[in-house]
């Protein structure tokens, strides 16, 4: 009998060990492969958010430091867990926003982005890692958020928000955060929020500045009240052209998280009729009192003309992405390909290569023989630059026999500014400078890097 008990006890101990080992293995496996999230490529109806009537012991421990705040408290925390937030754009603003909302215990996060992770995103889009390159941003962000707080329900949407799906999607959420990077999407999100009656926490960041406003909130103005007409497309700068210091959208995304949490917890936002401007250069925040809701507003006014979503790309005259458009300003005989230029270079024919990018970009990379005169200097006819240009043309003329026009090839990053420069130089040729034969190198240095010299840096 005693022997049998002993034997059973030993067996039990062995099994317990086995169970512990299995549990450990499972935990490790789950850690390296978190719950597989389903990536949505279209808008589907969501089940209502289930809410807990009380906080669990684990909740109390996890959120203890914010539960201690009288501003939040248990009631505020429970309100957060009942709130769903749609984040439009999982980039420089959306990443820190999603991170802080998840950490604070928001109930449900919709994470929307049509784009994939690229190396040039990582300096500011801090939820994505090197191993996520090529992955859908929505999925990469959702996985990162899940690692941080597995109790938050995440729904990644890998799709372009459009007039066809925006209202259907936005209706399913309590609060919307605009973290997009282009004007048509800003109007689209605004109109869909007005039509669905949702508050819109909107921020932007460019170069060293950021802005934040809460639209369509407690009777305040909407985006269209402030900006009834879109800006001319040529006046809009995006991050891939203008540059941005990563921490600036980081600060603005955190600011958005703060306002979302205040609205979700029941505390309320004070940015409903206010524009907060952040100047990173002199570390200054300014609050601007805005106009109230406009009775004549096309979407939230008394007699709205926009009662359903429209074609926002047509309305704004630009595409709903921040990718650069390819201009086509010149005739075919005014352009050469990078391959053509490679053979001109190899033949060592006398010519001038003019790089019209700003100096800050020339410092990043340039072709060795190029002369740098920024497009803006040509447009403004800066005398020291015109003189330099004339000197180089004269030198070229001396090298060339006869009286033919010296060839000038113009290059920039992607081949848009170089076309504008060709137009300017064509006007100057024969009057402000000697007669020249100007051509644009189609596709610019990025085409050179792709097709001719793979060691040339891309940015």
């Amino acid at each position, binding site marked *: 009998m005693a022997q049998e008990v002993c034997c059973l006890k030993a067996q039990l101990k062995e099994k317990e060990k086995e169970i512990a080992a299995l549990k450990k293995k499972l935990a490790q496996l789950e850690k390296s492969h978190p719950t597989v999230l389903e990536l949505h490529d279209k808008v589907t109806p969501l089940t209502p958010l289930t809410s807990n009537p009380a906080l669990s012991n684990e909740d109390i421990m996890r959120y203890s430091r914010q539960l201690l705040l009288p501003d939040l408290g248990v009631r505020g925390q429970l309100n957060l867990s009942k709130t769903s937030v749609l984040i439009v754009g999982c980039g420089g603003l959306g990443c820190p926003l999603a991170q802080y909302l998840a950490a604070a215990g928001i109930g449900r996060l919709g994470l929307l982005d049509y784009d994939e992770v690229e190396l040039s995103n990582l300096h500011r889009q801090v939820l994505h890692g090197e191993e996520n390159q090529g992955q859908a941003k929505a999925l990469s962000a959702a996985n990162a958020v899940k690692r941080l707080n597995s109790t938050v329900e995440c729904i990644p949407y890998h799709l372009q928000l459009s007039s066809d799906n925006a209202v259907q999607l936005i209706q399913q959420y309590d609060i919307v955060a605009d973290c997009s990077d282009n*004007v048509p999407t800003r109007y689209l999100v605004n109109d869909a929020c007005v039509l669905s009656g949702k508050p819109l926490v909107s921020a*932007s960041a*460019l*170069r060293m*500045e950021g*802005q934040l406003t809460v639209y369509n909130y407690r009777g305040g103005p909407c985006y269209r009240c*402030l*900006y*009834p*007409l*879109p*800006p*001319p497309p*040529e*006046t*809009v*700068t995006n991050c891939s052209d*203008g540059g941005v210091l990563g921490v600036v959208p980081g600060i603005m995304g955190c600011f958005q998280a703060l306002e979302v949490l205040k609205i979700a917890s029941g505390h309320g936002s004070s940015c409903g009729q206010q*524009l907060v*401007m952040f*100047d990173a250069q002199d570390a200054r925040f*300014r*609050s*601007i*009192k*805005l*106009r109230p809701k406009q009775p004549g507003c096309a979407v939230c006014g008394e007699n709205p003309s926009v009662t359903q979503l429209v074609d926002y790309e047509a309305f704004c005259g630009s595409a709903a992405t921040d990718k650069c458009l390819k201009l086509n300003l010149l005739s075919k005989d005014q352009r050469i390909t990078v391959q053509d230029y490679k053979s001109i270079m190899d033949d060592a024919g006398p010519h001038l290569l003019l790089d019209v990018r700003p100096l800050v970009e020339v410092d990043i990379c340039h072709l060795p023989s190029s002369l740098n005169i920024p497009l*803006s200097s040509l*447009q*403004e006819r800066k005398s020291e630059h015109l003189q330099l240009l004339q000197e180089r043309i004269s030198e070229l003329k001396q090298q060339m026999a006869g009286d033919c026009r010296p060839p000038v090839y113009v290059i920039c990053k992607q081949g848009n500014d170089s076309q504008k420069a060709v137009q300017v130089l064509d006007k100057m040729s024969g009057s402000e400078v000697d007669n020249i034969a100007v051509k644009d190198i189609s596709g610019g240095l990025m085409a050179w890097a792709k097709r001719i010299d793979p060691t040339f840096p891309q940015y």
Partner: protein
Amino acid sequence: MAAPIAVHLEFGGGAELLFNGVKEHHVTLPSQSEPWDMKQLLVWIQRNLLKERPELFVQGDSVRPGILVLINDADWELMNQNACACLTAAGLDCSVGLKPAH
């Protein structure tokens, strides 16, 4: 006659690029028979400060769509027709910020 007034102008959010990248300008508006108003100030800015491509700054007799005009940290629209009063009364402290939204 309205006396000359000192105005502190600020351009931001990319609008400064139309003014050689200079964000802050301290200017003195000359005396004129009428009190200065915002529309006249925009014309003055266009004639005296704007370097190039006025279409990126003005359209008709106002700023182009996408630019917000702010007076003393408030939206110009809040002032309505009283903008001229603001310009003369505020004198030295009057700052006008012009910010495009993106």
